[in-house]
C-alpha cells in the first residue's frame, strides 16, 4: 500500500526509457497504472526549441571499424553441450497437511518463502468482488497479538519483506528474509497465517485505501480496458468478469465476517503449497515450519465442511454449479474450529452461488 505508482513513475523519469514498449500491467492489481485515454497536455512543456545541430568540441577523425570476413554472419555456438540440471525441489509434508517444496540456493544469504493457497478471486461470492484481495491485504495488517504497527516493526527489524495478494486462482503470502532472520521471520509468518486479527478499525482503514485505489483506477485507462476485457471474456456473473479489486459498492459491502469466512475457508494447510528457495536446507526450514505450525490447534474440520463446490471456473454460459466435492481434506492452521459455524466449520454454502438458483454444493 505504499508507493508502487509513484515509484514506477520516478523510475520512468529517471531511467526507464527502455527500448521495448512497456507491457500492459496485469489486470489483477487494483488501480494498475497503465493508461490509454487521451493524453493531457503536458502543462510542463515550454516552446523555446532551438533546432540547431550539435555544437561542441571539433569533430573527430571519422575512423571506421575495418570490416573483416568473420563479421559477416552470426558466429556458431561454442562446442559442447549445455549442462543444465533443473532444480528438483525436495518435497515434504507438514503434519497439518501443507505441502512444502524446498530448493536450495546458497549464493546470497537470503531465503524466500511463498505460501500459495489454491483459491483466489474464484472464491469470491457474487457481489463481493475484491474480497480475495481484501483478505490478502488484511492478513498482513496484524494478528491477534500484534497490531499493524507492531507486526511491521518486527518485520522491519529483520529487514524481512512480507506481502500478500490474490490472483484469479490463488492467494499468496510471500516472505523474503535474510538467512539470519529466518527463525524469527517464520514465527511471524506463522502468526500471520494462523491468527490474522481483522480488527474493524484496520478493516475500515484498508477499505478506505482500496476505495482511493479504485478512484485512482479511473485515471488508468489500461486498467479500465482490462476490466472491460474481463467482463467480455467471462461475463458479469463470473468472478473473473468483475473489475479487478471490485467496485466501490462491492468493497463497501464486504464485512469483517466476509473476510474471516474467506480466510477460514481457503487459507488452509491442505489448500496450501509452501515453496521455499534460498540459503537454507530442507531439514532446517521444515523443522522451523513444523514448530511454527504446531502452535495452533491441529484439529481438523469435519470433512462435511468441505462438501461444497470448489470454485469452478467456467465461462458464464455454463455457470459454476459444479457439485464435485473438492479434494480438500480436513486441516487447520489452528484457528478454524475455534470459530465454528453450526456445521463445525465456516462454509460458503449460503453465499457461494454464482449463477445457479440453488446454492452450489448444497447437497
Amino acid at each position, binding site marked *: 500500500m505504499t508507493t508502487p505508482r509513484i515509484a514506477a513513475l520516478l523510475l520512468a523519469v529517471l531511467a526507464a*526509457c527502455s527500448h521495448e514498449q512497456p507491457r500492459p500491467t496485469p489486470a489483477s492489481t487494483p488501480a494498475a497504472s497503465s493508461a490509454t485515454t487521451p493524453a*493531457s497536455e503536458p502543462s510542463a512543456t515550454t516552446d523555446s526549441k532551438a533546432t540547431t545541430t550539435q555544437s561542441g568540441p571539433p569533430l573527430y577523425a571519422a575512423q571506421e*571499424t575495418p570490416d573483416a570476413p568473420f563479421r559477416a554472419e552470426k558466429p556458431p555456438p561454442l562446442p559442447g553441450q549445455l549442462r543444465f540440471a533443473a532444480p528438483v525441489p525436495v518435497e515434504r509434508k507438514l503434519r497439518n497437511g501443507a505441502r512444502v517444496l524446498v530448493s536450495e540456493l546458497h549464493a546470497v544469504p*537470503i531465503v524466500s518463502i511463498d505460501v500459495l493457497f489454491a483459491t483466489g478471486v474464484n472464491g469470491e461470492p457474487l457481489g463481493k468482488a475484491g474480497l480475495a484481495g481484501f483478505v490478502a491485504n488484511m492478513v498482513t495488517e496484524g494478528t491477534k497479538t500484534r497490531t499493524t*504497527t507492531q507486526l511491521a516493526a518486527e518485520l522491519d527489524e529483520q529487514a524481512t519483506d512480507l506481502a500478500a495478494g490474490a490472483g484469479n486462482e490463488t492467494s499468496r503470502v510471500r516472505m523474503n528474509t535474510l538467512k539470519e532472520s529466518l527463525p524469527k521471520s517464520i514465527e511471524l509468518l506463522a502468526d500471520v497465517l494462523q491468527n490474522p486479527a481483522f480488527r474493524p478499525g484496520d478493516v475500515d482503514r484498508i477499505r478506505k485505501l482500496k476505495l482511493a485505489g479504485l478512484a485512482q483506477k479511473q485515471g488508468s485507462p489500461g486498467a479500465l480496458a482490462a476490466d472491460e476485457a474481463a467482463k467480455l471474456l467471462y461475463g458479469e456473473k463470473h468472478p473473473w468478469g468483475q473489475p479487478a479489486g471490485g467496485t466501490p459498492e462491492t468493497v463497501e459491502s464486504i464485512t469483517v465476517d466476509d473476510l474471516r469466512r474467506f480466510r477460514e475457508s481457503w487459507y488452509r494447510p491442505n489448500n496450501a503449497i509452501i515453496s521455499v528457495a534460498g540459503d537454507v536446507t530442507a531439514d532446517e526450514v521444515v523443522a522451523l515450519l513444523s514448530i511454527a505450525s504446531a502452535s495452533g490447534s491441529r484439529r481438523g474440520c469435519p470433512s462435511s465442511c468441505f462438501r461444497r463446490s470448489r470454485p469452478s471456473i467456467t465461462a458464464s454460459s455454463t455457470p459454476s454449479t459444479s457439485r464435485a466435492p473438492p479434494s480438500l481434506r480436513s486441516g487447520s492452521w489452528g484457528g478454524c474450529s475455534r470459530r465454528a459455524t453450526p456445521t463445525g466449520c465456516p462454509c460458503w454454502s449460503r453465499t457461494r452461488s454464482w449463477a445457479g438458483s440453488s446454492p452450489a454444493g448444497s447437497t
Partner: protein
Amino acid sequence: MLRRMLVFAVAICALPVLAKDPELKFEKYRLPNGLTVLLSEDHRLPQVSVNVWYHVGAANQTPGRSGFAHLFEHMMFSGSKHAKDPDAILEQVGASNMNGSTSFDRTNYYETVPSNELPTAIWLESERMGFLLPTLDEQKLKIQRDVVSNERHQRIDNVPYGPTQQRLCDLLYPLPHPYYECVIGDIKEIQSASLDDVRDFFRRYYGPNNASLVLVGDFDPATARRLIEKYFADIPRGPEVKKPDAKAPPVSSVVKETLQDRLAQLPRFQLVWNGLKPFDDDEPAGDVLSEVLTGGKTSRLYQLLILEKQVASNVDASNPALGLGGWIQIGATARPGHTPDELRALLQQAIDDVKQNGVGPEEVERAKLKIVAGQLRSLERGSARADLLNTYEMWLGDPGYLPRDLARYRAVTPQAVQAFARKYLPDDRRIELTTVPAGKRTASAP
C-alpha cells in the same frame, strides 16, 4: 511521537548482523582502444549476461535536443551492417532479458544468452559499437522518432502525475541545462532529430574508450577474452569525452506551482530540493532519511499520514543522485476528501520534527538494515550484478566497491540523518508542487 516510541519499544530485539558480506568477484582489463572489460564468473546456470554501458546520457545532450540520448539508444536496436535484425537473432539463440535503457548519465545495452551462444552476443554488441552507421537511414530514424514520441505519451503524458514529474525537471534544470525535459525529452525536439545528429552522437560518444563491457555468468575466461579481442580490438578509439559539467542554478526561494492533471483522481503534494551527485559522502544519510520517512508501515510518514491521520493514500520519498546534481523529493497523495494543504502541513511537521528532534537510533538501524538487505537481494540476479559492476566502474573506477558501499551505509548515524535534513531540506529554498485533478471530476469522498 508516543506511538512511535511504543513501536520501537516493542520492536527492539537482536538485529541480525551478516557474518560476512558477499563479494563480487571479477577480473578487469582494458583493450588498447580503451574498452574496459569486466569478467565475473558464475557457473550456477548455463547462461551469460552481457551488459555494455556507454558513459553517455541526457547529461551529454545539447539545448534543443532533449530526449536525444534515448532516441539514439533506440537506433542501436535498428540493425547494423551485418546484423539487420539483432532482436530476431537473439531470439533465435534463446536470449532473454534483451533491452537497453537510458538515464541522465549513462546508457546500457544488455542481453542474457545461453552459455554456448556467447559469441553471438559479443558479435552483436560489436556490431552496435562498430557498424551502426552504414545502414542508418531516414526511414529507420523516422520510425524510432515516432516510437519514442509514443513512449513519452505512454510513460509520462498518459500516466497520472506524469506531467508533474516532467515539470520537476524543467524547474530544477532550466535551459540550457541538458537535464531539461528529463531523459524522455520534449516531443517536438525528439521529432526534430536528424541523421546528422545520430552520426555525430555515435562518433562522439560511442567509442570503446567511453564504454565498459561486463560479462556475468557461465563462461570460460580464456574463451571470453579471445572473443572480446576478436570482435572489439579493432574498433577504433573515439575522441576523448569531456565529463559533462553543466550547472543548474540552485533553487533559491520557495517556488510554488499547481498543476491540473487530467488523469489524476486525487490531489498530490510534493516538496523538492536540490540533491546530490552519486557517491557523495552525504548520499547514505539521505537514503536512510528517505527510508525513515517512507520505508514501509513503520516509517514516520506512513504512520502519521496513513495510519494515524488517514489523510493520504500514499507517501513517498526519494533521493536520486545524478551526475550533474540530483534532487530530493518527499510527497504524498491524498485520500478522497482530503486536501493538499493537509498533506503539506503534515509533511512539514514531520520534516521539522527530524530537524529539531533528530531520529532515533532504532529507526536508523532499521533503515540501514533494510537498505543493505535490499542491496543483497539485488545480487541474486546475474544481470543485476552486471549493472552493479558497471555502476561502480563508471562512477568510481572500482568495480569491487560493494563491501565499501555497504560499509558507508552501515556507518550512518542518527546525527548524520538529522544533519542531512538540516543541510539539504531548507524551508526557504524548495519547490512545492501541487497536483489537482483537472476539471470537476474530482473523486468524491466515500
